[in-house]
């Protein structure tokens, strides 16, 4: 390939995962990118600073504004997402905070679907409110309710798809249509889907947000977040990141780039394992209900089929006639998945949302969020499918 280029978009997803965003010929002819740890970058002379300021050269200045490793990852993620631009942050939460702090001002309102990552809700409800931003929550997927909540102050419509942990898939066509009708920007947290399965930009969504800590990094060994969108809309967001300082580190960016090389392969496997395990659980007598978009029984299966290529590795299920302790006993009995929060890595993780994320909430409020005592969330990794199924079977069937 010639000098530096993004492979053309007609190249396969696997090819882009390996090559997109990288210079073909790298410094010292290395096959992989070097890790550039510098906190600051020097200029040859005063004149070169003046040239840089005047002509806005594409070069580094100070580590808080960007570094070469972060830029490679941003280009790669933009290509994979089908977006013009991408901005990477030190975590998923830093990314949403960076975007909302840029786009919202006192008096503005945003509307959320109510199923969402609990910290996104907490940031908006507890902290954005201190800056005079009002958050409305409406029932997930209820487009009518979302549209009626809109008023002249509404600035952004926000949803996950699929949602965490209920795996509700949003009809992006209607969601985007509401935004367009009212001239309001839309944001999708696509962490659980990833661009391998879902491309919200193609549906007309303005901003796509990911916790890149999850499937993108893929090895449970780095924190990162990303916002994708148009160059024009993201320009002020990037400037604000330079002030807020939530950039990621060159070391982490190298690991993220490395993780993305196997992105297509890992996602294919997460999809495969997720579907097989969801089907197993659904057929098991001790399981009351399975939330997985790839199952016909899932309420938003139709939207899932309409918008997604596969359904990733997150599965939530309810244990039949079990209280929270009996549910916990099943988790404790599993030998392969480790107990812990997060998802999207090669190793499977399992947890009880009521214990892991909602233990401090009163039980009525948990019920309101749809978090039940007998709920288990499994983040299926890329281990051998049969090993995982056998492990779940023995845990469910313990004496």
């Amino acid at each position, binding site marked *: *390939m*010639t000098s530096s280029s993004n*492979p053309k978009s007609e*190249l*396969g*997803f*696997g*090819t882009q*995962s*390996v*090559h997109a965003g990288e210079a*073909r010929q790298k410094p010292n002819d290395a*096959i*992989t990118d070097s890790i550039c740890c510098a906190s600051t970058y020097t200029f040859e002379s005063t004149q070169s600073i003046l040239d840089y300021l005047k002509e806005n050269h594409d070069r580094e200045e100070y580590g808080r504004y960007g570094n070469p490793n972060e830029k490679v990852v941003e280009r790669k993620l933009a290509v994979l997402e089908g977006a013009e631009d991408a901005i990477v942050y030190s975590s998923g939460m830093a990314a949403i905070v960076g975007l909302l702090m840029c786009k919202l001002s006192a008096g503005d309102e945003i509307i959320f679907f109510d199923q969402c990552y609990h910290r996104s809700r907490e940031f908006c409800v507890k902290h954005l409110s201190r800056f005079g931003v009002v958050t409305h929550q409406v029932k997930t997927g209820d487009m009518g309710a979302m549209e009626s909540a809109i008023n002249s102050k509404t600035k952004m419509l926000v949803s996950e798809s699929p949602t965490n942990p209920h795996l509700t898939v949003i009809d992006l066509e209607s969601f985007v249509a509401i935004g367009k009708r009212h001239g309001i920007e839309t944001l999708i947290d696509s962490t659980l889907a990833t661009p391998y399965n879902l491309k919200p930009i193609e549906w007309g969504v303005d901003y796509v947000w990911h916790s890149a800590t999850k499937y993108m990094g893929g*090895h*449970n*060994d780095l924190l990162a977040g990303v916002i994708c969108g148009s160059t024009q809309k993201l320009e002020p967001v990037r400037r604000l990141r330079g002030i807020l300082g939530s950039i990621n580190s060159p070391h982490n960016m190298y690991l993220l780039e*490395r993780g993305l*090389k*196997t992105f*297509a*392969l*890992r996602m294919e*496997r997460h999809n495969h394992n997720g579907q097989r395990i969801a089907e197993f659980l659904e057929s098991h007598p001790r399981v009351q209900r399975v939330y997985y978009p790839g199952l016909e029984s899932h309420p938003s299966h139709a939207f899932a089929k309409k918008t997604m290529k596969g359904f990733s590795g997150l599965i939530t299920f309810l244990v039949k006639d079990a209280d929270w302790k009996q549910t916990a006993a099943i988790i404790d009995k599993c030998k*392969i998945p*480790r107990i*812990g929060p997060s998802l999207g*890595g*090669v*190793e499977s*993780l399992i947890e009880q949302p009521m214990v892991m994320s909602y233990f401090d909430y009163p039980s009525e409020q948990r019920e309101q969020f749809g978090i039940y005592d007998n709920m288990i969330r499994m983040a299926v*990794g*890329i*281990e*051998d499918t*049969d*090993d*995982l199924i056998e492990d779940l079977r023995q845990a469910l069937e313990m004496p």
Partner: protein
Amino acid sequence: MKFRTRAIHIGSEPDATGAVVPPIYLSTTFVQPGPGDWGAFDYSRSGNPTRARVEKTIADLEGAAGSLAFSSGMAATHCAMGLLESGSHVVAGCDMYGGTYRLLHKICNRNNISVTLVHADDAAAIAQAIRPETKMVWVESIGNPLMSVPDLEQISQITNKAGVLLAVDSTFVPPCILKPLDLGADIVMHSATKYFGGHSDCLAGALSAKTPELHRQLYFIQNATGGVIGGLEAFLLHRGIKTMELRVREQSKSALAIAQWLESHRSVARVLYPGLASHPHHQRAVRLMGDQFGGMVTFDVRGDIETAKRLCKATELFGLAVSCGAVESLIEQPATMSHASYDPAARAQAGICDTLVRISVGLEDPEDLIADLDRALAIAGGA
């Protein structure tokens, strides 16, 4: 548990922090309970927690009594050669990595160690070459670069009977496809720089021993000579191993499709890939390896040395570089690159001709890779 599950979990057991990914220990030395009273680790050349974890994973995947991780494949090979003594004789397959050739003929020879090269796919030739002083038979489980496939089962019977060590460089055939120890080998060596690391970003080597005694002897040499892997590389290697089975499965699938396509191309005179029915030892490869044969494919272009050079320069997705087994596809000319350290006469005798081209198939979409080769073959314009 199956291979992929073990690759992810064995060696990554939780420590006191509960970390899903074990910490990286860069510490060179460790505080001891008392003088002469040794803790689990004392000095990182002798043992390091991060290295110990990846060694545990590799030993499990190879079915070994124990494994050792090195700073490169050559450091591992050199350690294995440390089992030899002045006067020892080695029988080695001639279809062999250039660096191993160089080590045997230009370094080991200084210690009065002699080598006989034979075609490793001919077990009878190996049996014939064994002499009373022979201490080791060294073969590659798929030869680099001519893709010869030795019959490891038959060879191990010969070496067992003769009381000779069988050491297998299995760099081209990772343990998710073939486990030489199960077939009777005594030592497996990997340039873990390749499929194990898998991302072209850490140099590493591994030795796995069939018996605890052999493991002990090799560990003694490793500690005495010091070619150990560092903590950061051990971490990257361990991270790579978690996706190895997925990567190799995909690479094998793509390589077979590409080999079949090359075989039908008019500018290609001959394709060497054990997965092709036309490979002289295809049946043997199927018996030993099943339905996966790795990502390395060698072929002869019609034309001369210049045609091969033009081809290597013309690809856009395949990078022009030595090494192999990683996520990005590579192309190279063995005669001038990976096997330049052979003596020209020995190279010719081994059959490594100037029109030979070697590719390492990565994780790109195979259709994109075929389109790239098609374009490059047209530019190279064979005879």
